[in-house]
């Protein structure tokens, strides 16, 4: 055991290193810092930050509330639009959303720290367990929500608020979806994802059934028959395959699985990591996997992405974060072959790519990187059974502007309906809005 041990092994670092490496990426602002940061907000008219927020949080208002010493009121403003505002404050790519729209950028190239201010306010409210919402009188209507991820939780909360009885069916052991299983550890410290779930469920009227998988334990038709409405927030359960030689060698795994295992590990020292790790992909998952591989003590970590920097789904902030942790990002390389000794991964052969008139194509030139672990972060796919005749198109559930699917009584939102976008915050917005549509339909 040791830092440079070959192969995939745990305990590369000291306990202190693990603790430091997986501490909060951005510690919460203290009250003074929050006051200083909030003073920079101009309280814009028809604020661009608010328009840029998929959940349309009244950002100037909540920041003004912080500046006047009313963090609880600020949290109320945030939760009115986004009941998962706590996690969103941690995982939103604010630099491409609200903070990119901040007018302070125009004159100073430095936006108001909206994300960190949102975290400050929501943390205060969650810690003090201040509850802002009460259930309306029971309507006698029952709604099934499939999936306890951001979309499902947002929908469940809003439905409960309006007095509907909500039952959430979740395949996994815990609620939270990607907030619990898919986010880098250093972005969700102190068990915040579960604390947030508890906070959201405190409204009452929501029953969560874990270990209940669509297609295995029940079908959509069952739910539709037993409930007045159904909301599908089932996410993307599948992962894309590489479809190259060597993919099944030991040490070649899905990044999503790796991130999940790390999040759920009580002791990070128990999580095995290769000495040389190659991560394939260009999105947030690739970054989260690569950075954490480095933080677990991998000596060299390389992200190989088949297109250019400008095409990466990971935000510039995330790319910089990876670079600062010592991750090498290489562009225009696609996997050709995973190399092995017959059972274990020993390296990967990558082929250079270029844009041609026919699209992206390999150039024929290759490069081989040493690797004892290959993590695939090349996208998730829609994978679900038990949907019956529900209309699916392009690997996503088809919905209208209100979140209604092709089946009566069935709504959907979150990653399972989205194409090209995989943000927690948009899932929350869709869950919330679908809940309002359901509420109107049940009235």
């Amino acid at each position, binding site marked *: 055991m040791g830092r440079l041990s070959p192969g995939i092994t745990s305990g590369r670092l000291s306990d202190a290193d693990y603790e430091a490496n997986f501490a909060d990426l951005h510690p919460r602002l203290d009250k003074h810092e929050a*006051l*200083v940061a909030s*003073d*920079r907000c*101009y*309280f*814009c*008219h*028809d*604020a*661009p930050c608010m328009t840029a927020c998929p959940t349309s949080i009244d950002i100037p208002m909540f920041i003004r509330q912080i500046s006047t010493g009313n963090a609880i009121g600020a949290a109320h403003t945030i939760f009115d639009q986004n009941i998962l505002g706590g996690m969103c404050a941690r995982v939103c790519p604010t630099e491409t959303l609200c903070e990119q729209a901040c*007018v*302070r950028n*125009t*004159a100073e190239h430095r936006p108001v720290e909206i994300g960190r201010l949102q975290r400050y306010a929501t943390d205060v409210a969650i810690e003090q367990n201040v509850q802002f919402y009460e259930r309306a009188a029971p309507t006698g209507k029952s709604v099934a929500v499939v999936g306890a991820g951001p979309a499902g939780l947002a929908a469940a909360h809003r439905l409960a608020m309006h007095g509907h009885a909500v039952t959430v069916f979740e395949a996994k052991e815990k609620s939270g979806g990607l907030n619990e299983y898919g986010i880098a550890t250093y972005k969700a410290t102190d068990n915040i994802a579960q604390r947030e779930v508890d906070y959201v469920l405190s409204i009452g009227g929501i029953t969560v059934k874990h270990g209940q998988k669509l297609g295995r334990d029940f079908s959509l038709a069952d739910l539709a028959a037993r409930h007045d409405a159904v909301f599908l927030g089932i996410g993307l359960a599948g992962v894309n395959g590489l479809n190259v030689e060597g993919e099944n060698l030991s040490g070649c795994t899905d990044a999503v699985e790796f991130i999940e295992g790390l999040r759920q590990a009580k002791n990070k020292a128990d999580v095995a990591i290769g000495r040389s790790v190659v991560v394939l992909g260009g999105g947030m998952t690739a970054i989260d996997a690569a950075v954490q591989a480095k933080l677990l003590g991998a000596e060299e970590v390389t992200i190989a992405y088949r297109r250019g920097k400008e095409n990466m789904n990971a935000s510039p902030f995330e790319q910089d974060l990876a670079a600062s942790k010592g991750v090498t990002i290489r562009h225009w390389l696609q996997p050709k072959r995973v190399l092995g000794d017959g059972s274990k991964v020993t390296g990967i052969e990558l082929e250079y790519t270029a844009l041609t008139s026919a699209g992206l194509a390999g150039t024929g030139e290759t490069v081989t990187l040493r690797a004892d672990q290959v993590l695939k972060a090349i996208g998730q796919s829609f994978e679900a059974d038990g949907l019956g005749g529900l209309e699916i198109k392009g690997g996503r559930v088809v919905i209208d502007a209100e979140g209604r699917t092709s089946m009566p009584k069935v709504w959907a939102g979150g990653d399972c309906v989205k194409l090209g976008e995989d943000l927690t915050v948009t899932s929350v917005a869709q869950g919330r809005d679908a809940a309002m549509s359901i509420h109107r339909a049940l009235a």
Partner: protein
Amino acid sequence: MADLRNNFVGIKSPNPFWLASAPPTDKAYNVERAFKAGWGGVVWKTLGSEGPPVVNVNGPRYGAIWGADRRLLGLNNIELITDRPLQVNLQEMKQVKMNWPDRALIASIMVPCVEEEWKAILPLVEETGADGIELNFGCPHGMSERGMGAAVGQVPEYIEMVVRWCKQYTRMPVITKLTPNITDIRRPARAAKAGGTDAVSLINTINSIVSVDLDTFAPSPTVDGKGTHGGYCGPAVKPIALNMVAEIARDPETYGLPISGIGGVTTWRDAAEFLALGAGNVQVCTAAMTYGFKIVQEMITGLSDWMDSKGHKTLDDISGRAVPNVTDWKYLNLNYISKAHIDQDACIKCGRCHIACEDTSHQAITDMVNGVRQFEVKEEECVGCNLCVNVCPVENCITMVPLAAGTIDQRTGKPVDPNYANWTTHPNNPTAVQAAE
């Protein structure tokens, strides 16, 4: 290099920046530090009669209001005059004046409104070598309850009487410090002049309660659960002070009376404004109490650099220059028309100009042009009120542009009249006088 030397009623100092009578000038230790930092003069913290000194509260003496980033905008205090024995102050003043002969040292005095009291203290002060005296007729708290300070400053007859005594019993120049806690500042100034004062200084602090502690429901500063009104000063009071200085400077009865300007001077720019409105020098307190004595160096260099850039060689070149331009509303040119103009390159699109105009003024700024977030002035609605300029967070992004004579005002559809015309001759004025042919 501009010459910043100041001669105020014969009192000379290397620059026009004096520390006002207040805690910063309480004792030799502070004043020595102030002079080392570069202050041109000090008005020593107010002396009282011989005998047991006054006592101060032993709890908080100051309260404040703040702007963004907790920048102190206004300070209030309930401290009284010096609480040190008179003889100690006099000895220290004498020593400091000997140590710093080129600096101005003024004694602020407040004794009961009895001729004998003034007669008794003036020779003692004179003996220190002080360059002049300032009569504290302004202190609005504590001392005023005992018939001193603002209690005198609010009665012009008393002012005149005491000034007369002082002029009678000392050869030192007399500066009469005025309280702003009156209705018309010209009355006490005229009284001081009638009594023979050499100068007035203003403003002293303003009656104020800066805040209420919402847990204890007591005004702050709170002393054992109770609070009292205190004297308000700092950047927030500057506009009030500037107006009062200007009122005296342009009053025919006090025209030419030297004025030491006080009230929120924080930067060289503030000082230059006081000078322009007729002050011969300025006194500073809150800025020093906020940032320390070093700030005078910014004031000195800033004033000097500005004067150089404008070709002003001495303080006389700027003092009073704005006084002729202070007038009554009724004499403002009603034919002057300006319109807001928004520099689209400087605009950061915060929209505050729009919402301020839309909600509270004349609906003269767009928030959308051809479906794009864009803030443009609608000249046909703009009355030129300047509110947008004031609420814009970017300096010089919005400016007021005068319409040239003859151009059409889009709001009225009429050409801009090149002639000056004011309310006194306006047809809507029932008391209008016929313009002379």
